[in-house]
């Protein structure tokens, strides 16, 4: 205890609050050990002022003998030396003794305390049985305590405690100890609270005075540090750290204010030039040297900061927060450098670097000292900053002292080094013994180049190892390019260029130079330099072994757009096709390109180019993006996945589940080509660079590319038909070739070869139906010459037809499109052919001329419904059919044309429409008969009609036709009709047949054309008398009487070849006949058929063969009765082999069977059935089947609809209510 007083106690780490002991020293000494052990055993809650959270603390104390000097004098703010509690020990149990000496001693003690206004005291009365036994005349023990309390503890009875038998192991003793300790702790804490509170108040007051002129930060620092020390003493490191942090913040604020122009006087001492830069010192708990400097107000900024940080570091390590040390250290180092700058402190160049380097290493050493390796590795992220900073500083020192210069340090450098070394001072004793101290490291590193290199991995480039440097650079360049950091890319490329130049990697160097020359991040001067590098290389005459150097086009120029002219990019052989290529040259100066060529890939395949050559306007835009900004695109796109589940349709259970990638096409794309363009080190470009001279190419010679956009015109080769795809672009500048190995998007053009074509079409505009028969029509001939060139003398040979003569017209002239003026056509007609000589026309031109043709309207009536009735002989080339919609009759006129380019005749069909349709009617008025002809204009044109004439074809004298038509000329508008009427007069009997011909003249009304000649329209028709043959004798049928019914069956159609099988012709008797069954049925019960109602007749296979059958019928009612129905069937006799077709097809077989079944239902002698198609069935196979089927039966088969025409359908016969005979005629067609 005495020893404590001699030593400056505050500077050991074993600081404890001081408690003084007065009274019986020997008594205390006997209890000291127990007391010192027992006191910290139990924690005590410390309630604190200012709302600070209460804390549990373990109290310890430094018990010292009471001396008056220990008590603080007024104004002494020292806290560490402050006695927090004063204890008076006594074991007095004798009142006499007490009165005699102890009381007096206590009084003196109290007086001293009161003098120093110390109120934290305690009187301990130790009682022991041993002592009691010795004294017989003892007062009750309480009496002494009571006396003491009475004498000293005025209203503070708790200031006197009794400790019973402290040295004995008894429960009483324990109890007594416990209550004593609690009391002691409570009082200690009370004292702390009170005294610290007072101290803090004083400190705050001091701080508030900081604006006053005489205020000194250093003084304040000392005061607040005192508090920090106390907290540290109480093991309240957190609180202690707060004190230092507050000091730190306060100082920082002052420096910042100084920077803002608000300087404090006391800061002047910190602005002294830096003379020592020996770094942080963290190995001592308290750096007394620095502390004294601060106390004396002589500390420099670095001293203060170093001291402050060393304290913070110590506390943080106590708090087990080493990583905060590293963070704070970095912050501190940065901060110090800034503050020195801010305070404009003069510093020897490099001094700060030394200081920072040493400090970094010191911090790292300190951290390493208190952590194990695994902890360090796990937290390397915290230390990396310091390492980096140290490295950086060492590097800058290396530069400063010429240690990295190629030639070693100069004398100036050496001087500087000496200065720096001087500032380091001497090594501190703590580290002096170790081999590896930051101080030693730095000193060694600065002392020689070799040592520096050892300590600092020198940039390989600087030290002449460009090969390794290039590797590193390339790697970082790849990263920068991939991530699109353009400035870094530029910078790294510049370094690479340097390496490559040193390494004489010509290709790579040129490629890098090209990229740099086009780099917008560089200034014009630098770019020009790199461009000149390329150009000067290019202009060197190539050595014998030198080959041309191929570089990527991307660095040199960018394709902007390509324009085809004509825009379709599809031309015929030999035509002119131009491509305008717009290129953005990235070079800073104009570059003369000897040849700019694009190789073409030729393929015979055609048709693919359309649509790919651009959007119709013939412009292909190349995707833009500077070589660098495309980085985002070059990155692999993110996977787009979606879940796929396949469930069973029945119970929706999961069959399979999977993951499908939606953007496979993007992910699985080739990447290499894209990368190789950007990576300058890919010096050897793909083999495609070797330009094949034999291939077709677009070529432009001697082009000068100005910086920026240039336009180059190419003429595309179009010699052979096929499609041409642009593959690669190559610009040659001397020995250097700039190559773009792919052109994307695909640029194609197509060259085609076309056969000559002749088309004939009506000259539009005349009418909707275009060509009308009967009037001259203009027809346009168009000849697309294709690859054929029409020579002089070439002529079209048109075969003449009677029905369509070609009219000669003087207006005929041929026009060659895309040339000027018309050229006369000469048309020569002979009997068979019309020859049109064509004007000479170059290939791929269109020749047009017009001809007037006339299609005669066929004179015979054109029956609408039947083609078979038309006269095949006359119109073997023209087929007339009714127009589906308008019932317009049209004539297909075929023209055979011999073209000079072909050995074959061209057959061209022209369709003419007949503008009119005629109908006739026989009208009766009494006994007078009139013939009315209705002429309908079915065309869209208007016509004038004149001279309607009706004549008999075979003039007879018996009939006279009297025209009732007044007007000579009439207008027939489109879709209108004209009616003409004639009265028929006859002298004798009417002939059974009257063949008439109607004719009228017509002319189209046209506003433009002069009135054309009238053409004649003919309409022939025949009037037949109705073939009603009344029965001989009787005029009328009468009910109830039998009348004769003559059934007449006439074959109207000849069985055609194809239909022959259906008409069951049998050749058994040598004569070709068909058997028919007829049946007279009357469903309406108007008639009674008498006798045989049905029968089978054999019809000869010849046209108009007629079979007549007489029958008897009886009308059952009077009046106009409809004729009885007559049914006709095909009769298939049983004699022919009945069967199913052998092997042909089963479908037909089924058909047969069903017919068979139906036939079996029909009973009757005439009803026989037979299968169709049996004509084919011959051979033994059928015979066998016959037997299997049983008896062969004849069969009936109905005619298909339309095959039978019932002449009497709808006719009626007058039946008088009397018996009469009547003859009916039934025509079966």
């Amino acid at each position, binding site marked *: 205890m005495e020893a404590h007083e001699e030593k400056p106690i505050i500077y050991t780490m074993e600081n404890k609050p001081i408690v003084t002991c007065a009274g019986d020293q020997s008594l205390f000494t006997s209890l000291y050990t127990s007391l010192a052990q027992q006191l910290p055993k139990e924690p005590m809650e410390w309630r604190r002022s200012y709302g600070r959270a209460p804390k549990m603390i373990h109290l310890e104390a430094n018990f010292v003998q009471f001396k008056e000097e220990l008590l603080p004098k007024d104004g002494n703010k020292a806290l560490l030396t402050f006695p927090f509690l004063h204890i008076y020990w006594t074991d007095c149990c004798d009142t006499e003794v007490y009165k005699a000496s102890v009381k007096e001693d206590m009084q003196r003690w109290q007086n001293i305390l009161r003098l120093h206004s110390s109120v934290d005291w305690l009187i301990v009365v130790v009682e022991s049985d041993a002592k009691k036994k010795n004294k017989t005349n003892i007062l009750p023990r309480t009496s002494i305590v009571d006396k003491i309390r009475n004498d000293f503890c005025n209203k503070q009875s708790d200031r006197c405690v009794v400790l019973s038998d402290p040295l004995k192991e008894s429960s009483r003793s324990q109890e007594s100890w416990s209550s004593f300790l609690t009391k002691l702790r409570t009082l200690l804490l009370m004292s702390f609270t009170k005294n610290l509170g007072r101290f803090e108040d004083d400190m705050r007051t001091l701080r508030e005075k900081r604006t006053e002129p005489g205020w000194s930060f250093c003084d304040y620092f000392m005061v607040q540090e005192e508090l920090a020390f106390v907290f540290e003493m109480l093991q309240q490191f957190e609180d202690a750290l707060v004190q230092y942090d507050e000091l730190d913040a306060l100082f920082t604020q002052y420096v910042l204010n100084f920077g803002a122009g608000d300087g404090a006087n006391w800061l002047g001492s910190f602005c002294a030039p830096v003379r020592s830069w020996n770094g942080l010192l963290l190995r001592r708990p308290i750096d007394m040297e620095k502390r004294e400097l601060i106390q004396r107000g002589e500390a420099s900024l670095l001293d203060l900061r170093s001291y402050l940080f060393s304290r913070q570091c110590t506390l943080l390590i106590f708090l087990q927060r080493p990583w905060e040390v590293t963070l704070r250290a970095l912050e501190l180092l940065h901060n110090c450098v800034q503050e020195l700058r801010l305070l404009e402190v003069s510093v020897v160049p490099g001094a700060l670097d030394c200081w920072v380097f040493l400090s970094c290493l010191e911090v790292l050493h300190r951290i390493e000292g208190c952590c194990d390796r695994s902890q360090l590795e796990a937290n390397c992220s915290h230390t990396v900053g310091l390492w980096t900073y140290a490295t950086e500083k060492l590097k800058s020192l290396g530069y400063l002292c010429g240690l990295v210069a190629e030639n070693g340090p100069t004398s100036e450098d050496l001087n500087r080094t000496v200065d720096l070394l001087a500032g380091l001072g001497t090594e501190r004793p703590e580290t002096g013994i170790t081999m590896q101290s930051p101080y030693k490291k730095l000193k060694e590193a600065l002392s020689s180049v070799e040592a520096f290199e050892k300590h600092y991995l020198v940039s390989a480039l600087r030290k002449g190892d460009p090969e390794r440097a290039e590797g590193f650079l390339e790697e970082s360049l790849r990263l*920068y390019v991939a991530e*699109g950091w353009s400035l870094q890319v*530029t*910078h790294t490329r510049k370094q690479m260029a340097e390496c490559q130049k040193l390494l004489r990697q010509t290709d790579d160097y040129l490629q890098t130079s090209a990229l740099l020359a086009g780099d917008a991040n560089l200034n014009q001067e630098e770019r020009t330099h790199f461009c000149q590098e390329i150009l000067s290389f290019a202009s060197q005459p190539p050595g014998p072994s030198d080959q041309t150097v191929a570089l990527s086009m991307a660095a040199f120029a960018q394709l902007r757009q390509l324009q085809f002219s004509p825009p379709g990019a599809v031309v015929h052989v030999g035509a002119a096709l131009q491509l305008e290529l717009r290129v953005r040259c990235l070079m800073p100066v104009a570059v003369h390109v000897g040849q700019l060529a694009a190789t073409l890939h030729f393929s015979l395949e055609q048709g693919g180019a359309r649509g790919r050559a651009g959007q119709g306007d013939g412009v292909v835009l190349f995707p833009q993006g500077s070589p660098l*900004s495309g980085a*985002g695109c070059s990155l692999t796109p993110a996977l787009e996945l979606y879940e796929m589940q396949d469930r069973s349709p029945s119970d929706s259970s999961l069959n399979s589940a999977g993951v499908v990638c939606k953007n496979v096409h993007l992910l699985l794309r080739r990447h290499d080509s894209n990368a190789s363009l950007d990576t300058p080190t890919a010096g050897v470009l793909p083999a495609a660079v070797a330009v094949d001279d034999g291939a077709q190419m677009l070529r432009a010679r001697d082009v000068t590319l100005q910086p920026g956009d240039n336009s180059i015109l190419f003429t595309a080769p179009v010699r052979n038909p096929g499609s041409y795809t642009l593959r690669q672009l190559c610009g040659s500048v001397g020995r250097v070739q700039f190559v773009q190995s792919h052109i994307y998007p695909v640029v194609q053009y197509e060259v085609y070869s076309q056969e000559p074509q002749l088309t004939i079409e009506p000259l539009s505009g005349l009418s909707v139906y275009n060509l009308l028969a009967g009037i001259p029509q203009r027809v346009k001939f168009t000849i697309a010459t294709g690859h054929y060139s029409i020579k002089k003398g070439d002529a079209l040979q048109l075969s003449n037809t009677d029905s369509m003569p070609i009219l000669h017209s003087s207006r005929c002239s041929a026009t060659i499109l895309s040339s000027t003026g018309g050229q006369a056509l000469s048309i020569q007609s002979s009997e068979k052919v019309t020859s049109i000589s064509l004007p000479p026309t170059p290939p791929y031109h269109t020749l047009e001329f017009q001809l007037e043709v006339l299609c005669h309207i066929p004179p015979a009536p054109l029956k609408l419904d039947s083609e078979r009735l038309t006269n095949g002989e006359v119109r073997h080339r023209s087929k007339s059919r009714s127009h589906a919609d308008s019932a317009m009759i049209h004539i297909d006129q075929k023209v055979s044309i011999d073209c000079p380019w072909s050995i074959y005749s061209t057959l061209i069909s022209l369709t003419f429409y007949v503008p009119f349709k005629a109908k006739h009617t026989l009208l009766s008025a009494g006994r007078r008969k009139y013939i009315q002809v209705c002429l309908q204009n079915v065309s869209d044109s208007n016509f004038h009609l004149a001279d309607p004439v009706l004549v008999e074809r075979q003039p007879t004298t018996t009939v006279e036709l009297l025209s009732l038509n007044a007007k000579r000329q009439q207008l027939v508008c489109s879709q209108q009709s004209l009616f003409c009427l004639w009265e028929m007069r006859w002298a004798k009997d009417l002939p059974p047949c009257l063949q008439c011909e109607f004719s009228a003249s017509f002319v189209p009304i046209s506003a433009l054309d002069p009135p054309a000649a009238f053409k004649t329209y003919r309409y022939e028709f025949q009037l037949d008398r109705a073939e009603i043959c009344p029965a001989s004798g009787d005029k009328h049928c009468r009910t109830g009487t039998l009348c004769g019914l003559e059934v007449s069956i006439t074959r109207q159609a000849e069985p055609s070849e194809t239909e022959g099988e259906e008409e069951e012709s049998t050749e058994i008797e040598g004569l070709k006949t068909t058997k028919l069954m007829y049946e007279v049925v009357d469903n309406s019960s108007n008639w009674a058929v008498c006798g045989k109602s049905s029968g089978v007749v054999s019809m000869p296979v010849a046209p108009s063969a007629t079979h007549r059958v007489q029958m008897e019928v009886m009308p059952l009612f009077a009046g106009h009765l409809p004729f009885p129905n007559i049914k006709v069937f095909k009769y298939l006799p049983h004699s022919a082999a009945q069967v199913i077709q052998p092997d042909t097809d089963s479908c037909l077989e089924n058909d047969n069977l069903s017919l068979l079944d139906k036939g079996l239902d029909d009973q009757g002698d005439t009803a026989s059935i037979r299968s169709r198609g049996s004509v084919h069935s011959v051979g033994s196979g059928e015979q066998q089947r016959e037997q299997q089927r049983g008896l062969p039966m004849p069969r009936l088969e109905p005619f298909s609809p339309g095959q039978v025409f019932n002449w009497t359908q709808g006719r009626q016969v007058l039946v008088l209510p009397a018996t009469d005979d009547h003859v009916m005629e039934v025509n079966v067609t």
Partner: protein
Amino acid sequence: MAVCIAVIAKENYPLYIRSVPTQNELKFHYTVHTSLDVVEEKISAVGKAMADQRELYLGLLYPTEDYKVYGYVTNSKMFRKLHNSFTDVMCNPFYNPGDTIQSKAFDGMVSVMMVQAS
């Protein structure tokens, strides 16, 4: 005030980068690029701890002697403004996410936040 503001895509390429003393642009770019390592570190640490993943503010990334690089944190509302402006850019239907930001409004916002070049 800021001397350099960069918006970096998650693939580490710059969407937007601008610095005030233009003569030292390269250094800033290098600094920003270096800071990205710290961002990566911090983000992966967040993932591990699973704590406060919504915290967008990464704090001090890379203090250097002269400058402090912050990942989305400051004691002013600077980054909130930047974030709002960035959100606006992203909401632009004509902006293709991943492209370099060329919005004038964003540029203006950044200019306000920057040290006024003297």
